């Protein structure tokens, strides 16, 4: 075998797939071990060359990308992913949004806090005297946590929310008073005790809803969660605490308590509760990182793993009582941990969280918001249109809606023709009509009556009405008629003239009209 000139770099590190390495051991004429290149067939050589070229190109492309480019590409990829698995199932009585907002993850701030905590975290039970008093700063709490202040009784993990310790003061972070009730406590009753502290409630909810095995982690998160961020993000954070706790459970649990949590969050809206100025600086830092796409996701992942670790450790210590609230962790199957996707109704700006595995592209977020809005409206329409409860699918639904609107319009036409036909023959017994119609139970929405309407001459045909029994509706209608008569000397043809002439005035009058105008002059009417 002769040496061949080749342009290849003979120092390929990877073992070429074709080579039978035993041949390389033979020493060639010139004293060099035969390079594997020589032992390849031409086809193999071509293959290797091509592969090298492709690799070079790929590596060059990859290395030239900046971090930002990578993030953007990833976002693009996520944006193009199908949302099939993200569409929440609508459960009875639950809003879709409630089901969605499960879990949020903290970013590195939490993870660092996590690491700081004593791995053998244990929880205090039944100890209301834990010295976490009012206004305790988060720093001290973190210290408390990290020093293993919390001892978990091994015999019983009776943890329950101590409602007494929770004050209206939103700065109140009395973890010491927090008990975790085993098995019994649902979240709802506790909410009444601290209505102003939605964030706290959420955390408490999170705690109460978390399986015992996760309580260690919960404590840390609780500490971490009481973040100084004094803006609506805080509430989302705290749901994130809950969520974090939630999905770190190993038990596949139900979604219900997540719903509960969300409901409570809704109850205490607009609370930038934790204005406690305590600082978890790393947490604030973490919070800032939320907008970043991939990095947050990766950190979330790390955090999840960390939490699982801790949870495993804690689980060994805590007797795994099944709390009733473990059903919060229902949605926390380890598969797809979703981020919260709520819209905070606090401000005009819509805050939307991206779910994990979804793009944080502003476009896709806005699109998702829009999609949810449209779904909401479609549900409304479904209720309105009769016989549409079983219909699923936008196209069929739209068809039904279109048919219904058309049928209603046709009915209006038909009835107007009928009215036109029968009208000249019958004296308008309007008051009877009105009274009959009003018996169906409409209620007045307007109030106040303008007494400034002049007394016009009564049209003779309306005197029947006037002399009839007075219902509340009758009077305003009557007075309208009178006002019309005053204003329009000659009423011809189209009522549109009337409308044009004084539509604004009419509007105002009508708005003032419907009072319970009992004092509305019966004597006037009877003139």
């Amino acid at each position: 075998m002769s040496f061949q000139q080749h342009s290849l770099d003979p120092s390929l590190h990877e073992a070429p797939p074709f080579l039978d390495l035993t041949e390389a051991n033979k020493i060639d004429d010139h004293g060099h071990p035969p390079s594997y290149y020589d032992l390849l067939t031409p086809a193999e050589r071509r293959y290797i060359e091509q592969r090298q070229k492709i690799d070079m190109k790929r590596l060059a492309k990859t290395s030239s990308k900046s971090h930002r480019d990578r993030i953007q590409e990833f976002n693009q990829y996520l944006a193009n992913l199908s949302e099939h698995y993200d569409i929440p199932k609508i459960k009875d009585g639950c809003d879709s949004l409630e089901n969605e907002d499960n879990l949020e993850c903290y970013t590195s701030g939490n993870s660092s806090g996590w690491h700081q905590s004593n791995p053998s975290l244990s929880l205090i039970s039944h100890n209301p005297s834990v010295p976490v008093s009012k206004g305790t700063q988060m720093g001290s709490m973190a210290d408390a946590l990290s020093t293993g202040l919390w001892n978990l009784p091994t015999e019983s993990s009776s943890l329950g929310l101590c409602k007494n310790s929770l004050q209206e003061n939103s700065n109140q972070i009395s973890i010491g008073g927090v008990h975790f009730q085993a098995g019994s406590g649902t979240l709802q009753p506790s909410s009444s005790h601290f209505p102003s502290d939605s964030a706290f409630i959420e955390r408490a909810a999170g705690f109460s809803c978390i399986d015992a095995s996760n309580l260690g982690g919960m404590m840390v998160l609780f500490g971490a969660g009481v973040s100084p961020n004094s803006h609506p993000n805080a509430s989302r954070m705290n749901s994130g605490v809950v969520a974090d706790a939630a999905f770190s459970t190993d038990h596949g649990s139900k979604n219900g308590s997540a719903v509960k949590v969300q409901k409570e969050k809704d109850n205490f809206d607009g609370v930038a509760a934790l204005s406690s100025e305590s600082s978890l600086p790393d947490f604030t830092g973490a919070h800032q990182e939320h907008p970043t796409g991939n990095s947050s996701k990766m950190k979330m992942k790390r955090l999840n793993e960390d939490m699982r670790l801790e949870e495993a450790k804690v689980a060994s210590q805590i007797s795994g009582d099944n709390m009733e609230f473990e059903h919060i962790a229902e949605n926390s199957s380890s598969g797809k941990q979703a981020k919260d996707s709520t819209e905070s109704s606090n401000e005009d700006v819509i805050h939307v969280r991206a779910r994990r595995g979804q793009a944080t592209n502003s476009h896709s977020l806005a699109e998702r918001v829009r999609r949810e809005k449209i779904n909401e409206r479609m549900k409304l329409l479904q209720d309105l249109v009769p016989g549409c409860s079983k219909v699923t699918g936008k196209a069929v639904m739209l068809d039904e809606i279109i048919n219904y609107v058309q049928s209603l319009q046709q009915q209006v036409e038909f009835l107007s023709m009928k009215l036109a036909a029968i009208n000249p023959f019958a004296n308008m017994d309007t008051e009877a009509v009105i009274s009959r119609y009003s018996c169906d139970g409409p209620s007045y929405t307007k109030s106040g009556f303008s007494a400034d309407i002049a007394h016009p001459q009564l049209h003779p045909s309306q005197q029947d009405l006037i002399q009839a029994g007075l219902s509340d509706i009758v009077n305003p209608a009557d007075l309208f008629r009178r006002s019309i008569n005053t204003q329009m000397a000659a009423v011809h043809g189209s009522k549109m003239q009337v409308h044009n002439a004084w539509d604004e005035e009419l509007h105002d009058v009508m708005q003032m009209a419907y009072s319970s105008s009992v004092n509305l002059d019966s004597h006037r009417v009877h003139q």
Partner: protein
Amino acid sequence: MEPKSCSGDGNPSRNLHPSKPLMAANFLRCLSRIQQTATNSSVGSRSRRIRRAAYASMAYSAGHRRAWSWALLRKLRCRRVRPVILPRRPRIARPQVVIEIDRAEVLRKLVPGGTGMDYCRLLEETADYIRCLATQVRLMQTVTDSISS
């Protein structure tokens, strides 16, 4: 045709609109006027007028908040100024293959004021429009029943 004061996009209104007594009063007022003035005109024209009265009263009771009522009012108002019949362009029969019906477009044509809205808003307005229409139909039904009885 955007209303001056649009109802918020946040929550689709689930209030107890439409206010029936308002609508009833409106409609009856118009009816009575029609009855007074146009006893001699044909059934057709009177029916047209009644129909317009129905829509007008409905739109009035809906208020200026809703886009469809606003558009409806404007349309009705402008009708008075201009004759309704516009010279139609002669339609050239194009070999069209309608593959897919754009239902949103159909809905836009049905609901007054629907052409200027995005889909989300359109759905909201449709819901409100359906509510008002249903009330109006019920009202007219009651009127005809009471009159004919």
